[in-house]
Structures are given as C-alpha cells and as structure tokens.
C-alpha cells in the first residue's frame, strides 16, 4: 500500500512538472494562437543560467534563472514573433522552430554540445518521511511550486485588471483592442510569464537530473505540446489536466512496465495522446484552434 502511495506521489510530482510546461505553452497560445517550439529552449536557457552561476547562493541563482527565462521570452517575442503575428499558424510554428534552433545552437557554441553537471543543494536530494512514505524533497518542492503557481496565476487572471485584459484578449483579441486594451502589452506580459514558468521547469529539471545539455528542452516542449493538445487547445485548465494525465501515465508506466519494454516508455506515452486525438480531435475538454476575430 505504501508502495502504491509512493508511486502516486511520484506520479503527481511528474504530472505537476508537465502541467507547468503545458501552462507556459498555453498562455502564449491563448493570446497569439501559436504553439511555441522555442519554449523548450526557454527551459534550457534558464537551466544553463543555473549552471553558469553555480558559484552563487542558490536563491540568487534561481532568481537569475527566472529572470533569464522571462527576458529571453520577451526578446524572442519582440524580434521574431511580432513580425509574423498575423501570419498563419503553420508559418508561426516554423518561425518558433527557427528560434528554437538558434537558441539551442547559441548555447552549443557558447558552452559545449555535451552535457554539463550542476551541483544541487544538498537538501533537495534528501527525502522526508511522511506517514510512512519516503518523499524526495524535490517532489515536495515541485508540488508546492505548482500549487503556488496555479494559485498565483489564478489570482492574476481572475482578480487583477491585467488578468482581465489577458482573458479578454485570449478570447477575442480584436475586440479587446477595440476597447482600448494594448495588444503589445498583453502579449508581452503573457510571454514574460510563460518564460518565467519555463524557467521554473528548467530549475526543477536541473535539480532532478543534475545536468544540463543543449538538447534538454526537446522532450519537455514535446510533452507540453501533447499535454495542451489532449487537454484541449487554449484551455488553461485543460493544459493542467493534460499535463497531469501525461505525467501520471509516464510515471506509472515507468514503474509497472515489463522490463523488456522500459526503454520504450516514452514511445508508448506519446502514442496515447494520438489515440485520444482520434476520438476527440479537439482534445479532452474541447477548444478552438486559433484566435477569435471581430
């Protein structure tokens, strides 16, 4: 029984991580109508910030990483995404792919193509005992962080004027502008938050794996995409659900999959969403592709 409980907490923690990725991607999707390939590189760059600033106190390094995520996202929006804002979805997707390739290779040139190891604070690799369960501290942090993020995002979106303008812009961008909402500002804020979320994910991944590499963002961004798609495009709640489901599935497969199939865990995990898409082409919770226009 305790073993099951253990596995469930592990699964929940992984699901939370995936939910955070999905959230970051959805935020940008709702205001831009674009699925951002480069989100994985925001994650990666924030992780490298930790690597580069390894000497500094942990808190400072994390703050720097968060800042890095937001700044890179804002920069990408200003330079690369704004010019293609009105292009069709495919064009925006390919543009984000280009940005991802550029960012990934900047790091390869600046640092190294190989993975580098990063020291993690001792406390995080320990476990704490709760009611007979041994829970890695990192998982506490992940769960806690996700809860805080969800709460904070909820507060921002539903209790502040900025959040109101974001929700309105997400539903009908043109109409919001007709009411005086500044398009550029809303998009910039969405990107900044998205970047910060990516950074948080990057930090958590580094804490988990103890290393960084230029290609570390690829699988997370795919996970995020798939979670958004199965949750239903553009639904913030759906993204969270999608992420949780994917994480739980992945984690439980990792435990219960027969030995011979373990290396193929990822393959199986990603085939499931495709099956979901066949029966529910708009995702589990439904959702509209693209933005509404006046």
């Amino acid at each position, binding site marked *: 029984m305790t073993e099951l409980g253990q596995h469930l907490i592990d699964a929940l923690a992984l699901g939370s991580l995936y939910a955070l990725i999905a959230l970051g991607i959805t935020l940008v999707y709702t205001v831009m109508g674009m699925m951002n390939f480069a989100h994985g590189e925001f994650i990666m760059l924030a992780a490298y910030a930790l690597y580069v600033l390894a000497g500094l106190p942990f808190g400072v390094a994390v703050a720097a990483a968060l800042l890095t995520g937001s700044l890179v996202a804002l920069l990408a929006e200003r330079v690369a995404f704004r010019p293609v804002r009105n292009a069709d979805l495919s064009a925006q997707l390919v543009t984000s792919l280009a940005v991802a390739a550029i960012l990934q290779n900047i790091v390869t040139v600046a640092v190294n193509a190989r993975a580098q190891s990063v020291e993690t604070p001792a406390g995080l690799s320990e476990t704490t005992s709760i009611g007979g369960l041994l829970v890695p501290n990192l998982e506490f942090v992940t769960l806690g962080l996700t809860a805080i993020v969800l709460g904070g995002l909820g507060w921002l979106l539903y209790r502040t004027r900025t959040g109101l303008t974001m929700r*309105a812009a997400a*539903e009908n961008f043109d109409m919001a502008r007709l009411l005086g909402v500044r398009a550029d500002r809303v998009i910039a804020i969405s990107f900044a938050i998205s970047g910060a979320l990516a950074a948080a994910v990057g930090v958590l991944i580094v804490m988990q794996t103890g290393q960084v590499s230029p290609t570390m963002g690829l699988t997370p961004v795919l996970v995020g995409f798939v979670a958004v798609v199965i949750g239903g495009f553009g639904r913030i709640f759906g993204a969270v659900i999608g992420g949780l489901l994917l994480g739980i599935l992945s984690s439980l497969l990792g435990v219960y999959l027969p030995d011979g199939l373990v290396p193929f865990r990822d393959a199986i995990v990603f085939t499931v969403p495709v099956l979901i898409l066949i029966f529910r082409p708009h995702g589990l919770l439904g959702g509209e592709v693209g933005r509404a226009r006046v």
Partner: protein
Amino acid sequence: MLELEGLRVGYGRIEVVHGVDLSVGEGEAVGMIGPNGAGKSSILRAIFGLVRPTAGRAVFGDRVLTGMAPEQVARLGLALVPEGRHIFKTLTVEENLRLAAPADGDGAESTEAALGRFPILRERARRRADRLSGGEQQQLAIARALLGRPKLLVLDEPSLGLAPKMIDTIYELLHGLREEGVTMLLVEQNAARTIDFCDRCAVLSTGKVRAQGSRSELQRNPDVLRAYLGRQP
C-alpha cells in the same frame, strides 16, 4: 467630428469600397444603410484600424485615424458596438463592463452608472455573459461601449437577429442616448428604423454612396428602393 474622405477599402486585389465620403457632425445621428455586401462593415473596420484602407482617409476632429492601431482609435474616444456584439462570453457581465471602464479611479463609479441605466444587466451582473439572451447581449455591448464615455458611438447592425420587441427596446435606448447628445453612426441593413431614427442617412450599394439625406428626402428618392429591391417594374 468624423470625416471620411475618398475612402477605399480592399482585401487583397478585391476592392469593396470605391471611394466613400461621409461626415458625422457633433451631436448628430447619422445612418449608413444598404444591402449586404455594400461595404458598410468594411468602412467601419477601416475607421477602427482593423483593416488598412487602400486610399483615402478617416479623420476624427484633428486626428487622422487611418494607420492607427485599434486600441489607439478607441482611446481617442470612438467606441464600436460590432456586428454580432462580440461580448466576452467567458467573462461575467460585470467583468465585461469593468474591462471597458477607464482604468483610473472613475472605473467603479461608471460601472455603477452603467448598471443603473441598464437594470437588466444589474440583475445579471455576476452571470457569465454567454447566458444572456440576444437582446441582453446587445444591451451589454452598448453599455460596454458607453463606459469609455465615447465622443462617437458606432453601432454595426444592432438589430441583427433580435426579435421586434427587443429591437424596440434597443431603439428606445438609442433615443435616450440621442437626447443626451451622444454622437452616433449607425449601420443597418434594415433601413426602416434607421431612416426613422437618424438625422441623416447615406445609402450604400456596391461600395459607393448612392443617396444621402434626411428621412423625407430619402423617401422621395427612387434610388433607395432600387438599392434594395432592384428596379421597379
């Protein structure tokens, strides 16, 4: 107040508005009527910066509107109640209003005033906007437009899809606004009420103004019937 000078609007290679001149004076209620496809909505989109005109311009007071982004046009004091209303369905009535209210301290007060003018909205203040009936949505759209205390209120087909009784209610509302001196530009395909209501109407057909004048002038003008129903036998 608003001047359209030689406005031409096109999408790609297709021109739908072939040089339109129109003016709206302060305190006036001006109508634009004409059949579907005449270009009325395109003219509005050009005024509000949703589409760039291919030639000509729109001038508001001393500012040239053409080339501005929609949010800039809105901040100059023009408010649009678009065709189909486009209220935010995932927001509550109150949130819809709050969004439109000026962000400064006045915000709460004008929202209150709006709810006062539209009692039915006050009743439904906490409901999600997609639960409102067509007529209620229209009222919300108008209330929302008014909140910005616009200098010019533009309405695109406000009676579309509404039951006759509801149309009566809406027009009563508009009458009231008229009394208060709100300047209005009203676009309708249904000519009857518009000609009745407005000081002046311009009849549009296939991208051009075919006739312009007051109610009595238009009722004497055979071009109006022709624009709608084709030549009389």
